[in-house]
């Protein structure tokens, strides 16, 4: 439906908003992940993102963590949505969490070294998952890893903030506000079942 011209104009408009509003380098994937009119996310190839706040090594860990938290499986994940770019931007804008991120990333590498003899980013995926399991699930918490648990919570929060505010993330939820303008409010489609005890089983 949307012609090429419109798509292009839309993409340019969004790029302009991001660029003008932020005055911040990068954002290529994030901006394109925000494309309004096309059916799905537009993947961008090209120059690599240069982090504005994190060091290259820190950024690689952030990127990997975001990917583990919201993976790309049958649907796009943190990587396609440019979540690590958002985190770099947001942490760079937020003095209140900068130390906590730096400290947490340092803790994570030291911890990975103690357990597996390498920094987090260099571990095997199964080792990374194992390490995070103990930080993420209360039933698997271990004494002495409280700082790591707190950092994981912070990192997870920023990942979800970054993911569910992109078009990719909102489409996965089916956020109605992306498209909805109604002439009349649609009411509950199950008027015969006010307690909603007999709804059809969810799909997927």
């Amino acid at each position, binding site marked *: 439906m949307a012609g090429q011209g419109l798509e292009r104009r839309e993409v340019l408009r969004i790029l302009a908003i991001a660029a003008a509003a932020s005055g911040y380098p990068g954002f290529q994937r994030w901006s394109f992940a925000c494309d309004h009119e096309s059916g799905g996310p537009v993947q961008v190839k090209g120059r690599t993102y240069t982090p504005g706040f994190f060091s290259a090594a820190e950024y690689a860990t952030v990127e990997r963590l975001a990917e583990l938290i919201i993976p790309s*499986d049958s649907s796009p994940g943190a990587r396609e949505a440019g979540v690590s770019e958002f985190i770099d931007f947001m942490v760079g804008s937020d003095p*209140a969490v900068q130390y906590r991120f730096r400290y947490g990333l340092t803790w994570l590498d030291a911890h990975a070294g103690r357990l597996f003899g390498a920094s987090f980013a260099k571990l095997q995926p199964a080792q990374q998952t194992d390490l995070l399991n103990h930080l993420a699930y209360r039933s698997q918490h271990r004494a002495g890893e409280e700082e790591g648990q707190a950092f994981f919570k912070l990192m997870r929060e920023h990942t979800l903030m970054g993911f*569910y505010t992109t078009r990719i993330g909102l489409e*996965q939820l089916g956020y*109605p506000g992306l498209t909805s*303008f109604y002439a009349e409010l649609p009411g*509950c489609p199950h008027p015969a079942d006010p307690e*909603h005890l007999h709804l059809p089983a969810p*799909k997927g």
Partner: protein
Amino acid sequence: MPGKTYDVIVIGTGAGGGMAIKTLCEAGLTICALNSGRRLEPSKDFRNHRQPYDMTYRGFGDPRKRDRFYHIENEYSDGVWEHGITYTTAPGTSWEWPRCHAVGGKTNFWGRSAARMGDIDFKTATLDGGYDVDWPVSYDEIAPFYSRVERLIGVASTVQKRPSNPDGEYLPPMKLRCLDHILERGCSKVGIPYLPDRLAQLTVPHEGHPPCHYCGNCTEGCDTGSFFSTPWMLLPLAEKTGKLELRTNAVVKAILADESGHATGVAYVDRETKQEIEVRGRAVVLAASCVESARILLNSKSRRWPNGLANSSGQAGRNLCDHLYGTTGYGYLPQLLGQPSFPDNVSASQIVWMPRWQNLKSPREEKFIRGYSIYPTGGCGEFPWYHDQIEGFGAELKRDIKRYYRTPVSFYCQIPSLPSPTNYVEIDPEVKDIYGIPVARVHFQWGPNELLMWEHAKQATTDAIKASGGEVWGVGKEPYTPGWSLHETGTLRMGNDPKQFVTNAFGQTHDVSNLFVCDASVFLGCTDKTTTLSILAFALRSSEHLVQRLRNGAL
């Protein structure tokens, strides 16, 4: 240099000022309206149709401004709330005072709940055995004004025949969502009413205004003018008369009065030039909002009025009341797990209410006097805030966040504080704002009656969620900071005794006959209802009284 003398100077353009301006202009009077901020530009200032990814900080706002923002303020509304003019609080008082000084004031962004008050509110002192005093107006006297306001602005609801809530004249209600049907069933099992709210929001075209398009972002301003606000619905009618001169960025310093006790005009500071300007009028309407109106009177000192203009009673600033707001509880409805998404977030998810059900059979059936209401919200929102209820990471987390998207529900209470001698506004003896005007100092604490209601509301919410087949995630730890509701009342209360009250039943000050107050400062206190509809009804009645008095030459 005294220029033109206007018939009436109106201070403020919110609900009360807007209604006064419209009524007075349509009566053929010349009006100078003073507003302390700028006009908003809907295309620039209303960002309600932007998606999170259109915003620099994805709608979370610049973290460096986090401590400065009011709770109601976010990246979508950045730049429209007042931060230039400060206020202070007494030791022990926490008070958050969000003010919108733009033309139209808080009506640009308000919650739209528009219930009538009734005799259960106006005669509350008699009913509950003598705490404080009754209002000087009965429901029969104000009811016709409510009707006229409802016809003018359009309020969507149903006839509910509740003892605590007089019914009005309504547009068709918003349709209930799945979560409403489930909660309604549950609430009925525990004796709590669950009904369509009274929403000053158009469900059909009305008086030339288009109906709501259900985008769900009302509190960021409406670009189609489909809910009541002064700039969309009242000022155009006033401007059509050719009688209105609206001066923006006019920060009022004082109301001027002569030795004989008549108001003669208003002195204000122009925000841009910082110059002080005087404007003359035959009468003055004060509608700057509760705390600000009290501040203006208390700052209007002269030899004749050493304690502030029209304040021979010493009551100006006293009896500040507010709604205690707080999240009483939240949880989810497992019936809706995994169901496809639905536009639950229409009207900022606020289309129903649980109107006061306490102390109705007898005024003393609970441990507290009077009563409160609850507003439920829930369903598919813009951001899955419930994520912190789901632990873990990876594909499972991603799947669960989607599975729970339809299910969360959250409730917040609207609890009236009782008038109290220890809750009041005064002028800070030392601090001045950037225009050299002494600022307001607020004294405020929640009292025991409010806190008993808060405990009651948490229990009621928990019961309602459970009775609906839901699971409780949590209950409110503590109420929000006072001031949060933006429903301040009191400070210039109305009553028949000039020794106890600042104004009479028409908002006319007892001391200065050509000075009227047309905002919630004249109310005796908060009720379980919101204030805007009542501000409009009382301002209409007071404005018509003023017109009559001017015509009779009684002023």
